[in-house]
C-alpha cells in the first residue's frame, strides 16, 4: 500500500469558518501545510451536500471542514447545521463509493495548542494511505 502511492501529493480542500480560531491557533496557518488549500466561508454551516460532492468531483482527494465548538457559533446555530449536513454527506459519499475517511468535520481544533497540527497530520496520513481520490478528474 505504502509503495503504491509513493510520491503522491494529495490535494486537500479545507473549508473554514471565518470566526473560528482567531487568536491562539489562527486558521490561516493551515496554508503552511503544502497539501492544503484553504477556502474561508463565513460559517461552517455554509457547507452542503452538493458543495462537498462538487469538490470531490473537481479532483480533491480529501475535504476537511473546520468550525467553531458547538456553543460558540457566531451565528448561534451555524455549526449545528454543519453537523447535520455532515452526517448526511458522510452517508451519501459512502453510498457513492468514496471512502468516508476522506471527509472530516473538526469543531474544536483550537481547544489545545497543538491540536491543529495533530489533526492535520493525522488527516494527511489517512489520505496518503488511501491514495488519489476516486472520481478526481485531474487535468
Amino acid at each position, binding site marked *: 500500500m505504502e509503495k503504491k502511492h509513493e510520491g503522491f501529493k494529495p490535494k486537500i480542500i479545507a473549508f473554514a469558518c471565518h470566526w473560528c480560531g482567531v487568536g491562539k491557533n489562527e486558521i490561516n496557518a493551515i496554508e503552511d501545510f503544502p497539501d492544503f488549500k484553504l477556502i474561508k*466561508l463565513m460559517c461552517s454551516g455554509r457547507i452542503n451536500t452538493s458543495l462537498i460532492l462538487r469538490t470531490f468531483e473537481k479532483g480533491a482527494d480529501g475535504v476537511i471542514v473546520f468550525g467553531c465548538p458547538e456553543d460558540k457559533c457566531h451565528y448561534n446555530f451555524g455549526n449545528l447545521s454543519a453537523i447535520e449536513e455532515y452526517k448526511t454527506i458522510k452517508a451519501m459519499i459512502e453510498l457513492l463509493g468514496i471512502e468516508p475517511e476522506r471527509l472530516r468535520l473538526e469543531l474544536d481544533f483550537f481547544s489545545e495548542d497543538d491540536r491543529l497540527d495533530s489533526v492535520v497530520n493525522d488527516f494527511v496520513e489517512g489520505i496518503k494511505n488511501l491514495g488519489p481520490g476516486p472520481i478526481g478528474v485531474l487535468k
Partner: protein
Amino acid sequence: MYKLKTALEKERIKLFFPHFSPDIHTITRIEPSACRVACPAGVQVKAYIGLIIAGKFEEALELIKKDNPLPGICGRVCTHPCESECNRRKVDEPVAICALKRFAADWELKKQIKRNKPIKRTRKEKIAIIGSGPAGLTCANDLIRKGYGVTIFEKLPFPGGMLTAGIPAYRLPRDVINKEIEAIIDLGVELKTNIEVGKDITFGELKKKGYKAFFIAIGAHMGLKLNVPGEGEYKGFIDCIDFLMSVNSGNHKKPGRKVIIIGGGNSAVDSSRTALRLGCDEVYIVYRRSRKEMPANVSEIEEAEKEGVKIRYLAAPVRILGENGKVTGMECIKMRLGEPDASGRRRPLPLEGTEFIIEADTIIPAISQKPDLSFLPKGHKFKLTKWDTFEVDPVTFATNKPGFFSGGDAVLGPSTVIDAIAHGHFAAHSIDRYLSHKDIKKGISKPQPVREWGFGLEIEDEIPIKRTSIPKLPIKKRLKTFDEVDLCFTEEQAIAEAKRCLRCGHCIECQECVSGCSRRLVMLSFPHKGIEEIGRSPEFILRVPANPNKLPLDERTNDMVITWKDEKERKHTLTLTLEPITCFVDPNMCRGCGKCEEVCLYDAIFLRPTKDGILVSEINETLCKGCGTCVAVCKTGAIKARHFTEKRVEQMIESCLHSE
C-alpha cells in the same frame, strides 16, 4: 489562494474579510488630522506631506493651492498653528510643516511652471474687493474661479497689503509676493492700484457701475497710541507701519543711531531687524511682559538676538523725552507679572520707583494696529466693535449692511496671514450664496474639533528623529542687505523631514487614487446616506466599487478572468465572479423586529419608517461588510447575503485545485 491576494494586502486599502473577491475595497480614514483642523484655512497638511514623501512636489503644491492660494508667502511667514497641534510633538518635535510648504512653493518658482489661464466668466455679477492683502486676494481667487467678475481696489501703489507694506524683504522676498499675486491676477482679476474707495470713488458710484457685492479687506494699518506724555511731539517718533512701509517702498535711509522699539509682536521684531539692516548702531526692543508671553514667532526673536538686537523685558514706557523738537530718550518703568488676564497672558503691573531712562534718537512704537476707517463716508451705518474693527457674523462674514462683507485684519485686528486667507474663503463662499439668492447662513461647515487626537497612534513606539533645522543665511552676510534669511530645504532634506509625519488617521486623503484611476472608479464620498445619523463609530469608510457605473448593486457583478500556465506550458483560465460583499433587505418581508440592528457589528443597519409608517430595517451599504450575522438572526428571512453564491464557491474550489 488568488493571484490578486498580495496586491490587495496593501497597508491602507484593504478588504475587510480577506477571502472575499475584490468587488469593493475600503480605505480607512479614522478622522481628519489634527494639523488640518488646527489650520484656520483647513489646508490638507497630511496629504501634501505624503505627496512630498512620494516625490510628487507638483501635486503637493496643487493640493495646497486648493485651500491656500498663497503657499510661498504662507510657507515663509505663517505662524503655523498646525505645528503646535502636530502629534509628533508628543514624541520629539513637530514636523516642520511650514518649511515643507515653502519647499513645495519654491519648487514651482524654480521650475517656472506655466502661467495660469484666465477663467471663463459665467456669471454677470461683479464684485468689488477693497484691499489687496491676503484676505482680498483669496476672496478674489475663489470668486473668479466661480465665474464672477472681480475687481480689487488698492489704496497703495502696489498690491499685497500688509504683505508688501509691513513684512520686510529679508523675511518675504518681493518676487515671491509678486509671482503669487500675478498667478491670481492671471485668472482674470482686475487690479486697480492707487484708488481709495470712499475718497477717489464712492460706494454709490461703484454700485452704479454694476458692483453687486463688496468685500472690505482693508487690513489694520493705523498704529495705536501709547498714551504717554510726549508722544508725537518730537521728531524721531515714527509709527512702525509707516517706518516699515517707507523702507519697503525703497527708502533705505537710516532713521537714527540709537533706536527703541516698543512692543513684542512680529512687527516690533521686524522693525528692529530692519533698523539693524539700515545701519543703526544700537537697537532696543522694550516689552512689558517676559519672553514667554511675547507674541512674535520664537525663531524670529532668536534670530533678532543673534543679529544684535537687545531686548529689554518687563519694561514699559512712561514718558518720551525730547529737546529742541527732537527725541532724546525714553523714560521707562520696570514691571512685574500679575494674574492672567482675559487673553490668558499674565498682566504686567508697574513697580513704583523703578523708573529708568534709555537714551535714543528714534522711537518706533509697534504695540498694535487698528483698521483705518477714514474711508467710510460720514453717517455710515456699519456696526463696529470698540477696537474700530467691523462687526461681522462669525460664520458668514457678512456685515450688518446687506451686500457688504468683511474679513482679515479689518475684522480681527492685527492677526495672521492664514487667518486672513481663511476669512477670504468663507467670505467668498457667502458672497457666492448671497448673489445666488441662497440663504447665506447655510452650507458652511468649518471642520469640527474632534475629541482626542491621534486615534490608533502608538506614541510610545515611535522612534524620535531629529527635526531638520531650516538652513539660514550666515549672520555676516545678513546685515546691511535685505537678502532672505531663511533658506529653502533641499529635496533630500524635505523628503527626510516629511517622513517624520506620523500620518495620524491612516488615509492621508491625498486623493491621488481618484485622479490616478483611469476608469474613474474611486469614490471618496459616501454613496449611501446614514453615516451621520449613526455617528457612533470613529471610523469612516471610503468605498471603492470595482464597477460602479451607477448600476444597482445586483447588476454590478462582473467577471474577472485569471490565466496562467502550468509546468507543461498549458494555458489555464479561471473565471472569478465578483460579488458585492453586502447584505440586503427585502422590505416586503421585514417585520421591523430590530434584531438585526442589535447584532450588527458595523452599525450598518437601522430601522426607518416607510411611507405607510411601518418600521423596516435598512442596510447602509457603505458600512455593511457582509458578515451575515443579520442573515442568521432574521426570523422572517428578509435579509439575504449577496455573496457566497453556489457559483462563486465552486469557482473558489476550482481555483484552489488548479493553482499551485
